[in-house]
């Protein structure tokens, strides 16, 4: 994989403000996942539209864990290294649901404005 220059290339976008947490929680809801996996899954799911660099990913992960929305378990991964797998807590799930609903309303509202205009 080669790095692409930021911003200018068609098909790549910055993640909208405040939605990174929503995205992370959604991803780890399926199964506990480590940091690299989260980044890869995000890229795969958005087909490369959103790419997150670790400098933003890890602060977000740690803040979610601090706020009790994520919890972490250490496991031995395939090649015998320690790895931290993130899962949402009950409060994280609740938060996610609320955020999802909010997001739906926001997008619905915005698209209806756009269509109506």
């Amino acid at each position, binding site marked *: 994989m080669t790095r692409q220059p930021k911003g200018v290339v068609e098909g790549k976008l910055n993640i909208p403000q405040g939605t990174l947490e929503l995205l992370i929680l959604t991803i780890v809801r399926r199964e506990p996942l480590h940091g690299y996996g989260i980044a890869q899954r995000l890229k795969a799911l958005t087909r490369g539209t959103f790419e997150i660099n670790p400098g933003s990913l890890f602060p977000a992960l740690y803040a979610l864990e601090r706020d009790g929305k994520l919890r972490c378990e250490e496991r031995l991964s395939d090649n015998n290294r320690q790895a931290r797998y993130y899962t949402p807590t009950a*409060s994280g799930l609740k938060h996610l649901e609320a955020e999802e609903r909010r997001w739906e309303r926001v997008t619905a509202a915005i698209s209806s404005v756009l269509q109506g205009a």
Partner: protein
Amino acid sequence: MTILYRIRALARWLFRREEIERALDTDLEDYIERSAAEKVRAGMNEAEARRAARIELGGVEQTKESVRVRLSFAVIDNTLADLRLAFRTLSRQKTFSAVTVSTLALGIGVNVAIFSLFQQVLLRPLPVPEPERLVNLTDPVADPKFAVRMDPRLFATQGGSNEGGERGTVFSYPMFRDLERDQEPFTGLAAHTFDEAKIAIDERTRPATAAYVSGSYFSVLGLRPALGRLLGPDDDRVDGRAESVVLSHAYWQSEFGGSLSVLGRTLAINEVPLTIVGVAPRGFHGTAVSARPSVFVPITISSGVTDAFAANLAIPNHTRRDHYWVRLFGRLEPGVTREQAGSAMNALHRAILSEVEAPLLSGADEQQREAFRTRPLELVPGARGQTGSRVLDPARNSLERLVAVSGAVLLLCCANVAGLMLLRATSRAGEVAVRASLGATRARLASLQLAEALVLALPAAILSLPFAWFTLRGASLVPGIPAAAPDATLSPAAALIAMGFALAAALAAALLPIRSLIRTKPGTVLQAQGARHTTTKGVARFRATLATAQVALSMGLVAMTGVLAQSLANIARLDLGADIDSVVMFEIGRRDGISLPGLGPRLGTAGRLEEALAAIPGVSSTASSLSPLLSLQKGTFNVTVQGVDAEPLRASGDRIGPNFFEMFGTEVLAGREFNSTDGAEGVIVNRRLAERLGLAPDSMIGRRIDAGARRIDTGAAVTYEIVGVIGDLRLSGKVTEDIQPQVFFPTPIRDTFYVRGALPPEALLNAVRETVARVEPTIPVFNLQTMKQQFRANIAVERFVAGISTVFAVLATALAALGLYGVLAFSVAQRSREIGLRVALGAPTGRIRRMVLRQVARMAIVGIVLGAIAAAVLGRAAQSLLFGVEAGDPIVLVAAAVLLAAVTLGAAYIPARRASRVDPMSALRYE
């Protein structure tokens, strides 16, 4: 997920840095490994893949740093923002803020002061190295020690307790020397006591406290001199001789200006010349809490008392084994536990008791001898010095009560603040709902609430200092405390601890409403507010409940205050059996009830003084006794009357001079009182003693009583003839106690004098001071005051509690009024449409007003009833402070209820008027 979980999570992230760092290492390493593995699979070679992965990460350290920043700064940023917001909000709500802050300040202030006192009087260890290795020797079984005296003439002047000053913690000097010689568990055994002494420097004689200390004293403590040397083993070799003296640092400063040339100068203690050899270290005030000696004198100094009878009672006394006046402490050898030392010292003590002392007993039966021989010795921690002294007892009792009171004050303050915060929280439901619907997390809401608590608590902490200062001033009037802590200050440590407690309490009070806040459903609240419906019914009901609770609290406090005031009034009205108006008193050679043999009272002094005092123009009569009337310390002893078959009576009493009862106007029921020619054979008893024996006062005259004294030679009882019977006289400072049987003995040696005169109190006090100085210039005068002052000093705790309770009742009533006003104003505003409708339909204004008043009446009545019940129940706890009135006194309760009713109606008046003036048009049009 509860709020507690959040706080825990936050705390974990704040305080477990290492854990976070470790987690970060794991995470980032794992990321690089996986990223590199991916690249290897894509065809890169191992090393290059790793490098690329690192670059992709954007630098391990940078990533770590951005995590750290996010975790810490976010918290700080939010907190600062919350604090700013809280400050802005609260500065707009002036009444709420002022009431909350002053309530908290009161609670904190009282506790800071009392905690300071407590710490300084009872908790502070001695300023010596390794104070925890010090142990005090005590003799817990006080009774057998005194059941048998070796010498009947040592029958104590105040009854069965020893003059030396305290129960069970004192030893005789020969016993000290025996123990010191043979003891092994200590690096050394030290003896000390303190006493008032005359100190003469360059012809000037002044009273001061002297500590009599053994040569081992300073070395056992491990102190170093501030100047010169301290006393050592060479200073107490020969009994009856002393040559050196060490000054306390404070005395050196005040008396000698800290001059270095003080060494080698001479001063005389009770007329014994001593050479100043050194100065004790700064901050060391001796080892008996509450006594602050100016000088440290070798314990071998002679008492200087020449009168044979007085010498038996005087200290230091180096020969008598039945004169208990020495306090002992030792420093444990390294590695020796208190238990080990205890068993070693017990064995030694018992051996001395049975081999040396038991054979000297006179008039003891076998059982008493056995009890005497097997008396245990106990070692107690001595890190804080002698805290068991009789001087300290009043202070300790007072302090324990004060600590309880101040704790209760803090609790009440917190309850009130919690109530206020709750009230505020419910009135903010709308704002919170808006915040929540805009996406504020519960944690943010909670943190906002906490920020408000902090913004309120910090000014309260600062404002508490004046409260604390006043409390300290008030508390230092409580008996015992001035002696125990003459220079009590607000100690920073105590202030910090108390403030910590108080802040924690305030925060807890603030946290209470958080639960209900964050449970708010934004939707319902906003709808309700938008439509101006009578909001959520729950909120209104909750506010009403709270206002009711505040009325109840205030009712309880007002009732308590009323009961305390009633009790104080009862005490003031109490018939003492003595007329103390326009009487002044003073003591010579005695302070705070501790007598100072070797100083002051001699044969003839009393007569000379009384003669001179009686000659003061305007003085109508004088009297004298051995210990002050209405002072706290009164010993008791057993009395039997010959020819009456009854159990021995526990009696108190005093030794008094002639015409004592006439001067105080005490009723003499039978016989006569002492006159100046009485010998030592007659006694006067009181009516209560006769009543206990079932005898009429008249029939007491001529009977002989046995008060426990025994002849040294034969062991026969010494009896006294009853020459008079008096009525009820309150002798003890505990004026509220029942009058005990009393026995009064005549004595030629008296040191408390009473002067009755028609002069104004100030003039009388001055005249007395001048007269004593002229007649007996070398005799120090203590406690020169009016008898009223003496009387009041005894009830200082009660007065203090009543004062605090008054302040608090006023505050609580203000709170209750505010709360009621808030509820009513709120509900009137809510119901303006309904009211408008009623008015439009023709309801007269009077009915509208009554409708609002009915609402307040319901809350007031429930609150008052609950408060009355609480006052009656809680008052039981304070019953020991009450006199002549029950906690649930109906008159007080009714008065408090009337007051509360008036206040609540007052609070309701404005909302009620507003309701009756609602303009139906505008109210209805609004919809």
